[in-house]
């Protein structure tokens, strides 16, 4: 323990590019994830940020949390704005009017990615811009008050998919955004979670080196929206991974790697019972979800194993 305390901080810069003093809720996993991402990115970046919690907590005029060049325009167009920044840098560099090796980074929530910004994202990935798209997935529209998105998990109660006498809450399965990103044939796709900071930062570092689009999907625990004690953010993120609900993996070309694997997954109840949004679920529904989680996880594991074998 002591030795870790000595050397771990040395692996990470003490410089903050997402400055403290912003207005995120206590225990906000998204703010933590943004902070870690920014540490890994360093200063030679330009960020395009979608409307959502992170934009709102960080930029009330005339103050800002951003120590790096940052632009927010709208909710659904972040990938397109990033496309423009990347193209602009390209031509200005060609003309000798810009000389900084800059990585362009788009940041958006799950709503800004899976729903309203889906088309712009697909367009930008297809066109092959050299940029990193990061989805901070807190599994609902949190900024506007916990409405469901297509990334909200099955069974979760939100303000627009409330659990009720005749409803279990969200009745659709979480949209598999990383798989959709992979389908675009881009060089690098990864999932990550703030509860595994080194894995997260390694993936950002990798994405910076990629020439072309990368897509990083970060599970970001939201105590407010998930109805979870604010000191359980890190634990909830770990449990999402240890139960197999949110596997941590990366895809390079068509090579799958399961970055964290467990001989035996924990039962999903361990994760569910911390959170008010799942409290209403019956045993039957939970076992239905458990089955689905197990099936998806083993498919992913198979894919990763196949890659290893081919190697």
């Amino acid at each position, binding site marked *: 323990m002591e030795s870790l305390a000595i050397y771990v901080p040395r692996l990470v810069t003490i410089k903050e590019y997402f400055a403290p003093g912003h207005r995120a809720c206590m225990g906000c996993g998204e703010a933590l994830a943004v902070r870690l991402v920014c540490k890994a990115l360093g200063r030679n970046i*330009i960020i395009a940020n979608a409307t959502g919690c992170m934009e709102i907590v960080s930029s*009330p005029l005339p103050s800002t949390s951003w120590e790096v*060049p940052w*632009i927010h325009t709208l909710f659904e167009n972040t990938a397109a704005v990033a496309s423009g920044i990347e193209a602009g*840098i390209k*031509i200005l560099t060609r*003309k000798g009017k810009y000389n*900084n090796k800059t990585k362009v980074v788009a940041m958006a929530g799950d709503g800004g990615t899976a729903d309203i910004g889906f088309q712009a994202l697909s367009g930008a990935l297809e066109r092959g811009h050299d940029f990193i798209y990061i989805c901070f997935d807190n599994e609902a529209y949190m900024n506007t008050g916990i409405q469901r998105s297509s990334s909200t998990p099955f069974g979760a109660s939100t303000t627009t998919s409330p659990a009720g006498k005749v409803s279990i809450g969200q009745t659709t399965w979480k949209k598999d955004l990383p798989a959709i990103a992979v389908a675009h044939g881009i060089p690098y796709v990864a999932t990550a979670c703030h509860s595994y900071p080194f894995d997260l930062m390694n993936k950002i570092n990798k994405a910076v080196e990629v020439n072309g689009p990368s897509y990083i999907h970060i599970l970001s625990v939201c105590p407010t929206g998930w109805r979870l004690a604010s000191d359980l953010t890190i634990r909830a993120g770990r449990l999402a991974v240890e139960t197999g609900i949110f596997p941590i993996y990366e895809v390079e070309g068509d090579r799958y790697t399961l970055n964290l694997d467990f001989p035996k997954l924990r039962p999903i109840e361990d994760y569910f019972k911390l959170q008010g949004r799942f409290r209403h679920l019956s045993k039957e529904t939970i076992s239905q979800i458990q089955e689905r989680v197990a099936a998806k996880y083993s498919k992913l594991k198979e894919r990763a194993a196949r890659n290893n074998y081919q190697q």
Partner: protein
Amino acid sequence: MTTKRIGMEGSFAIAEAIKLARVEAIAAYPITPQTHIVERLAEFVANGELDAEYIPVESEHSAMSACLGTSAVGARTFTATASQGLELMHEVLYVASGLRLPIVMTVANRALSAPLSIWTDHSDAMAIRDCGWIQIFAENAQQAFDLVLCAFRIAEDLTVLLPTIVHIDGFYISHTIESVELLEQKVVDKFLPEYRHPYPLNPDKPVTMGAFGPPPIYTETKKAHEVALRDSKKVILKVWQEFGKLSGSHYAPVESYKTEDADVLLLCMGSFSETAMMSIDKMQAEGQKVGLIRLRLWRPFPTEELRQAVSKAQLLIVFDRALSLGGAPPVCSEIQAALYPLKTKPKIVSFVGSLGGREISIQGFEELINNGMNRAKRGKLDEFEIIGVRE
């Protein structure tokens, strides 16, 4: 200074202006009747005639959004659209002007669905009236070429920094082959120096763009925007004057045609002014005291120039090419607002016509003017009329 006259489609004349302006970034999406402009630009880029990044985006929403990005890092940026495409851009337009990004766009004016119509009117332009851009109307291919070049000088002026639209009537300007005089590259280079944004996105000097405005500050930001847009008129006048000197083409916010002795004035916007001129010629030859006013600058609205232009008239007939459904026709209501505070002002008759590309002939404008004079005589000034409707 100008090159020899050549026959050229309006869209291609605009593309020539973009090439001469050494535009650095183009993000666009096809829509009739704008498409020829961006097709020609794609050709220029593909042939190495224009060193620019061309982003073939997946929608107009993304076209304008990508333009925000290219402009925010400091690249000279152009796009073009029309009708539904402009409507799809709607929310992004306000961001471009609010962030003071000097993007230049041509809109090949076209009616709005439903019913679908690819033909020209000003419904699309009027739907984005309040988006905070400088907006200028051209009447023919030469003007489109000239005004697009001037638009970059105006938009990028450090005291302006506002995006600018040059409206051109779909087909009438975009698809008609007219005789055009271009300018030589060295003349344009002198007129339009290299663009540098004063505070671009750049890691060397980080800025935050697009922060949100809580109630204690939002009003101040919008007031600043309003003042900047109003004040841009000074720069517009200066740039047009300078352009007139080098090209021989002179532009003004409100242009008068044979109004010296006219008691009755017709007011138009866009390409139909040219047809109306011929009606005025004919009616004046017959001894009628009629003249024409063309509103060239739509935003900022040229209140003083308009008041000046109509100061001697008894009657002003305003011809709108769009409806504000359920309300007063948009151009006419602005004219009325501008003239209402004056003690002496002309009577105003309001007509709407040529919706969705319906033709209006020389004789048609003559009838319209006569109709307007009749209405004024009968004191029927309280309602507007949609002309040429088959009942």
